């Protein structure tokens, strides 16, 4: 099972290799490119409007969550972080003092920042004691979490579901059950300066997200180091990725509602000695990664690999493959299975592939290579891919890669976007939508439904929208021929007033 990912490739690889290489007697001419003088990768993200400059902005964005709130609450050892979050209005810094906290903290409102205070190395520790599921669960926008230590949870350390403009920074996460850091279904996020280890799946997992920056993290002793899955416009740079089963991964998992991974830059990372025994859960995608994989690209498109130091990964420095060769992966007719347009620029590759798997050895033999070292191997179609200075690497299956049209990614500093201000919903807009979405189940303009017609209500309240707003919060039975109205006190006072005004204004 551990080698499942590549188990399926043997026959196909040998056949492919034979067709592609036996006819080629002479070595290709050596083409030498300079990465300091060539063209630069233009980047794959073209935002509209004000954000248009994002991909070429020389200034590196340091924040995507917007200006820091001024409202601050402090949580001390022995108190509850969740209680503070629950009481906090949107736009609050929750400062967490050193101590040990046994809780799951969930954040379903916007602009909450949980900031640990580190005193002489002592952190705010979230300790799941192997009993709690996840440490941090957020769905609000502009969420920031910094300076925490998280350990011994059964699920994830930090998990996001659809929050945009997030920042996950300076956290130390050990022995979370599945993922250390897992933002999912969000746009515009930073994951940086985290130390994550001992994770049974991916230490850092970017799932179904757009415009993400993963930088300066130290990830080790996990099954997968950093995983970019079904995501677009991501930069992974300056990370130290060591002693995982697989280091950096960019791939498409079939069967997810968002189907592509496009435009991922993996650059300037240390990808070292990722030979940890694979302890991934049976059935998980990462359980199929051969232990000893530096960088894995599977079905992801427009991946650029540049400036990494990739060393001492025993199976291969870089594996480029497709869904068809992944034995434990399901199919999805809507997922394009190949890794299109992979670009391999200059990287430092040392001592990779010294103990590779037999399927790869067989492929190397078809190219007349003895084994004992392997930097880059490609199995399965990878149309439009390119490489520069190919002569420096030990490769298999990349003989027909073109020369790249660019030699560096210097022009693309970030895919992050300026903080997007929250959408302001005008009261009349909200009033109409709430009336139609909720009230219209019982009230129509001029007919009998469950409640009296809007016309009748208009005659009663005339210029008194506040009267309606107050009544619907706490209705009393007024009419023998209608059932009592259920209270609508879950709507805040402004929304109730907006609905009331809409009801008095509506004319049909």
């Amino acid at each position, binding site marked *: 099972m551990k080698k499942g990912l590549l188990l399926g490739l043997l026959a196909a690889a040998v056949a492919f290799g034979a067709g592609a290489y036996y006819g080629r007697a002479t070595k290709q001419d050596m083409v030498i490119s300079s990465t300091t003088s060539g063209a630069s990768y233009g980047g794959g993200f073209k935002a509209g409007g004000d954000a248009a400059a994002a991909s070429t902005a020389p200034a590196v964005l340091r924040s995507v969550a917007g200006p820091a709130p001024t409202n601050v609450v402090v949580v001390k050892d022995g108190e509850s972080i969740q209680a503070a979050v629950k009481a906090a209005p949107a736009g609050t810094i929750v400062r967490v003092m050193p101590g040990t906290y046994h809780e*799951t903290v969930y954040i379903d409102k916007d602009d909450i920042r949980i900031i640990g205070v580190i005193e002489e190395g002592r952190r705010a520790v979230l300790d799941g004691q192997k009993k709690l*599921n*996840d440490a941090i669960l957020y*769905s609000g926008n502009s969420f920031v979490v910094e300076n925490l230590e998280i350990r011994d949870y059964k699920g994830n350390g930090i998990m996001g*579901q659809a929050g945009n403009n997030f920042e996950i920074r300076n956290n130390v996460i050990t022995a979370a059950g599945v993922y250390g850091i897992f933002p999912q279904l*969000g746009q515009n996020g930073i994951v940086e300066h985290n130390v994550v280890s001992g994770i049974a799946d991916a230490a850092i997992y970017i799932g179904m997200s757009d415009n993400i920056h993963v930088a300066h993290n130290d990830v080790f002793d996990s099954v997968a180091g950093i995983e970019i899955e079904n995501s677009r416009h991501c930069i992974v740079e300056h990370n130290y990725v060591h002693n995982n089963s697989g280091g950096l991964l960019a791939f498409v998992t079939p069967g997810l509602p968002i189907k592509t991974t496009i435009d991922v830059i993996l650059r300037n990372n240390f990808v070292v000695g990722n030979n940890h025994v694979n302890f991934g859960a049976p059935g998980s995608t990462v359980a199929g990664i051969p232990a000893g994989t530096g960088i894995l690209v599977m079905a992801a498109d427009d991946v650029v690999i540049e400036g990494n130091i990739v060393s001492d990964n025993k199976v291969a420095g870089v594996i480029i493959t497709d869904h068809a060769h992944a034995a434990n992966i399901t199919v999805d007719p809507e997922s394009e299975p190949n890794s299109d347009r992979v670009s391999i620029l200059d990287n430092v590759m040392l001592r990779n592939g010294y103990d590779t798997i037999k399927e790869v050895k067989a492929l190397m033999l078809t190219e007349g290579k003895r084994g004992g070292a392997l930097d880059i191997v490609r199995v399965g179609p990878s149309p439009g891919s390119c490489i520069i200075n190919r002569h420096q690497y030990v490769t298999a299956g990349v003989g027909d890669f073109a020369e790249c049209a660019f030699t560096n990614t210097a022009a693309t500093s970030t895919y992050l976007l300026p903080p997007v201000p929250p959408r302001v919903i005008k009261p009349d807009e909200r009033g109409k*939508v709430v009336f139609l979405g*909720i009230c219209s189940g019982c009230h129509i303009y001029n007919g009998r439904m469950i409640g009296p017609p809007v016309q009748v209500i208009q005659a009663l309240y005339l210029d008194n929208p506040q009267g309606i707003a107050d009544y619907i919060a706490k209705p009393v039975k007024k009419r023998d021929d209608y059932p009592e109205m*259920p209270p609508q006190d*879950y709507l805040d006072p402004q929304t109730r007033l907006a609905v009331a005004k809409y009801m008095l204004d509506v004319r049909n």
Partner: protein
Amino acid sequence: MRRLVVLLLAVACGSGARASTQPDITLNQRCPPGFEQTAAGVCELRTLYQFYDSLENRGVGGTRTALPPHRDGFTPQQIDLGRYLFFDPLLSGDGTLSCASCHRPDKGLADGRPRSIGIHGEDAGRAAPTLWNVAFLQRFFWDARADSLEAQAVGPLYSPREMGNDPARLIASLNRNATYRRLFREAFPREAAGPVTERQVYAALAAFQTSLISLNSRYDRYVHGYAEALSPREIEGLNVFRSFVARCSECHTPPLFTNEQIAVIGAPEPPGRPFDVGAEATFGSPKLKGGFKVPTLRNVTRTAPYMHSGAFASLRDAVEFYNKGRGHAVPKDMHLYLHWHITDPHLTAAEIDRVVDFLGALTDEAFTPVTPARVPSGLTPIGHANRTAAVSARK
């Protein structure tokens, strides 16, 4: 026995025996609840979720996430004609079943059976799915073999194991009926010169079904900012539901509580039932053997029994299935490509209870459609609408 009574009633009331003193059946000129009537005279859905966005516009995410793209823009008349058709047993081969026989307003727009029963009493093979929020779906049937409501309609209408009609007979019976001819002309004025067509029937049924909106549960109120809408136990359940131990929300993703993908979960068949290959047949792919479309969980407390063939009588049993170990119910001699989120989560009994509590907060039947008192065929409308129940469910 019940079926016999229905049949007798149909014979007694049917075949043009309508009392002439009753007023003509007319179509609603107003959009159904939840919809705004635009200047162009069509009905457009309005919901608070339209104030949010979603990644890649796919309508999956967390709390304040937009819904997926949806169908709307039908006229009030098309929607109301669809309602009459939906409840009219004229649509079945022998006048005994309507769409509402298996999509009952009082059963969460499902039918409360493990598997539906067709006109000749046969087992239809799979459970009737709820119709709530079908306006947002891209694929239909458990095995995802139809890609529109119109394409879906021909399945049950003409299957001998379901409504047992055929297109020629259906269209002939509608064109023989003066009331239907008038109503179709009104709903499709640009085609008023011609006879009733199959396409019009499917369009009207689709129009009605896209009006079945359930987006105002207590969960939704929590999402829109009212933190007290969920009880502490339900919030505990929500956090188990979306935790990466239970992983329910990875496929039953908010806001619809489905990601609309095919998942092979290895659910059992009821005792004595053969294994159902599901989506393998649709896509011709052995890796999808035993795969079914992830169903929505909205109004799930109303739609027992559960799974594609009703293997679980209670919601708790259905939740507990996921806690019994990856592949525990897969037939011994069979290899399935089980979904990666099917794991062995070791939830406690209390956590399972909390998930069930949370699922109860996904109930909203405020827009339950009204079963017509009469339908144009003169047959007895088949439906079990109960507005009182719908109203009390909102509290």
